[in-house]
């Protein structure tokens, strides 16, 4: 993450929902390569993807994202297509750069506030510094590791992706609270057996979520960029949550209980 920041001056690749720009969806079957050739030099940093119908796999629309203003982008596309883009045959979404910048800043504030509020609730529940800090560290590590992997893979983050990070806090905290509760608040059984029982339940929770999200991801991946981003971030995040809860958090908790006994 550090290297990425020093190279780019930012800690994620941002897509146009966070930098500002135009998204045009044309409800037609279009030759992508030919379109790409035409748009090079005419549109500023653009990307093209295809939307296909579930079941038949038939292409039904093309999505063009660019930082060019909507009027210009629309004109360039109309020249290529030889027909007018209307609200019946296309969708045009434009977000100004300043607004997107504002969105990004606010989403970061939202994540920060969510973390602070979550930390307060966790401290109120467990009233003990180390176990509460372990839960917060685990949630933070989930988000941090997910972002790092996405950067390594060159995946651009969108508003939807950042929302997914917030969802991840919810999923992450569920299993951490379960673990901490069973280890600290239960008296029956040895420490290891309590950890094992929490692991049994927790792993079931995460794996169920992971499989359900993966199945949903496979269904929506050819259609919705927003939901694909949300589900991809969740799949990666839930994977890291397995490590962070059952290795990091368990190690801290175990060390804390043993130290307290002594």
């Amino acid at each position, binding site marked *: 993450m550090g290297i990425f920041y020093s190279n780019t001056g930012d800690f994620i690749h941002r897509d146009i929902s966070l930098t500002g720009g135009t998204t045009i*969806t044309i*409800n037609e079957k279009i030759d992508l390569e030919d379109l790409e050739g035409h748009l090079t030099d005419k549109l500023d940093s653009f990307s093209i993807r295809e939307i296909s119908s*579930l079941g038949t796999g038939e292409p*039904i*629309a093309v999505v063009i994202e660019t930082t060019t203003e909507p009027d210009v982008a629309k004109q360039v596309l109309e020249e290529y297509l030889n027909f007018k883009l*209307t*609200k*019946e*045959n296309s969708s*045009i*979404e*434009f977000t*100004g750069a300043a*607004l997107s910048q*504002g*969105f990004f*800043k*606010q*989403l970061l*504030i*939202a994540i920060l*506030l*969510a*973390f602070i*509020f*979550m930390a*307060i*609730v*966790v401290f109120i*529940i467990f009233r003990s510094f180390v176990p509460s800090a372990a839960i917060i560290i685990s949630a933070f590590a989930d988000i941090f590791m997910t972002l790092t992997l996405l950067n390594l893979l060159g995946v651009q983050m969108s*508003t939807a992706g950042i*929302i997914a990070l*917030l*969802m991840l*806090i*919810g999923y992450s*905290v*569920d299993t951490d*609270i*379960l673990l901490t*509760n069973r280890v600290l608040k239960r008296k*029956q059984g040895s420490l290891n057996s309590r950890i094992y029982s929490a692991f*049994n*339940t927790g792993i*079931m*929770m995460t794996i*169920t*979520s992971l*499989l*359900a*999200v993966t*199945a*949903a991801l*496979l*269904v*929506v991946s050819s*259609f*919705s960029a*927003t*939901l694909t981003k949300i589900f991809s971030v969740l799949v990666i995040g839930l994977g890291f949550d397995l490590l962070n809860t059952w290795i990091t958090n368990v190690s801290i908790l175990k060390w804390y209980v043993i130290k307290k006994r002594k």
Partner: protein
Amino acid sequence: MVCNKKKKMKLPKFTWKIWILIIILVLSLISVFGVPPIALKKGVLITSVESNSTAFEAGFREGMIVTAVDEKLINSIGEFSELILNKFGQVGGPIAVTFDTDIAEIVYFSDKAPEIIVSEIPLTNLKFGLDLVGGSRALVQAENKKLSSDEINDLVSVTENRLNVYGLSDIKVSPVSDLEGNHFMSIEIAGATPEDLEALISQQGKFEAKIGDEIVFIGGERDISSVCRNDATCAAIRTCESTSFGYVCSFQFTVYLSEGAAKRHADITGKLDINSSNPQYLEKPLDLYLDDTLVDTLLISEGLKGRVTTQVSVSGSAEGETNEDAYKAAEEKMHKLQTLLITGSLPYKLEIVKLDTISPALGSEFLRIIMIAMLTAIGVVAIVVFARYRNIKSSLALLLTSLSEVIIILGIATIIKWNLDLPSIAGILIVVGTGVDQQIIILDESRRGEFLSLKQRIRRAFTIIMGAYFTSIVAMLPLYWAGAGLLKGFAVTTIIGITTGVLITRPAFADMIRKIEKD
């Protein structure tokens, strides 16, 4: 021998928590599908009626279902369009056509087809956001100026007035703010094109006050220095009286004119005579025009004839069945007039910071894919849960609880008229996900072979669930304000969903599990 002994209907032995779930579930289904189900209704739904049109005056309203035209039953839009074309296609003069609707019978008398837009009757009462059903949306800000919340409220009123004058219906104009304290105006229109929206926003309204054909003053700082509002000394409801038909309340407010406009007012009124039938007033009224459409007419007090005054008092009245109704109507009318007078005098330029026009073409495919994704996810959960617990009853209980959570969220969304947009659907997905997680905690706790009663074990599960619930709620709250309200749907659906889960569905699930485990 005939036995008259009545058979007592036996209700299944459910706990009160399960009964609450069943009742809320039924109510949610009723709210989503209607009673009788709206999908079974025949006819076409009116989605918008042009304001100030003959159709509006005849009684057509948005949301009505037209079931027959001149006693001919309608089953589809095609049939409706054909009938309308037959009736009004080549008429020489006005004709009377009877429209049967679900609310009343309307006799429409005109030479033109009614100015209404219709659609097929939807299968449910659910309302979907623009990103799923299409339409245009703009977020507007002042150029180089940070607007206060009062200023943005004024802007919203002014814009609403203008859009109504244009006859654009199905519009939602609302003030929105974000975490950084920026205020925006959001405009959502189902039918308009982005060009319409841009034109409406970029040109500020043209307001003119005329006596006969002569312009007395126009909107803008040049003629109107200010309009008194929110100050009881110069804008208030003055009197309320009972009359033979109910109550009538009078209002009065002051408009401050520039010297030039005051002089013009004096010149024009100086030439007018006193009204012979109503000698308190001058012979001609002051007509108010917004974008060249007459929107109101005010009588001019005879005392103002030829007087150069920069303070003009505008008064009027409104009626109502009760004193309260009349007061409210007068307040509304005064507010509308005040807004009209400031239209066109906004001291700042507007800038569109976000403009989306979504085609309705992909909406139905989108909803189909979301449904498939949700059912696939729930199906996968069912397989995993059954593989783990090997108990069909527990697995079914878990599945039914998850489905009921989705139905209850949709029921609440219908009741509060929440537009389900893509972020809201993402919210439903997270609710189902965390719901399944917490039901697994209940299931696991109930099966743990410890020296505790089942009740105690389930209570312990709820300690964990409540902890997770509060952390999720506080994590979602900031999103309500972030992103100029565009992510509100996600925050609201998630909060409604997890709260319903903790208060209704999960306690009922715990009771189901208790019953299954005891059996």
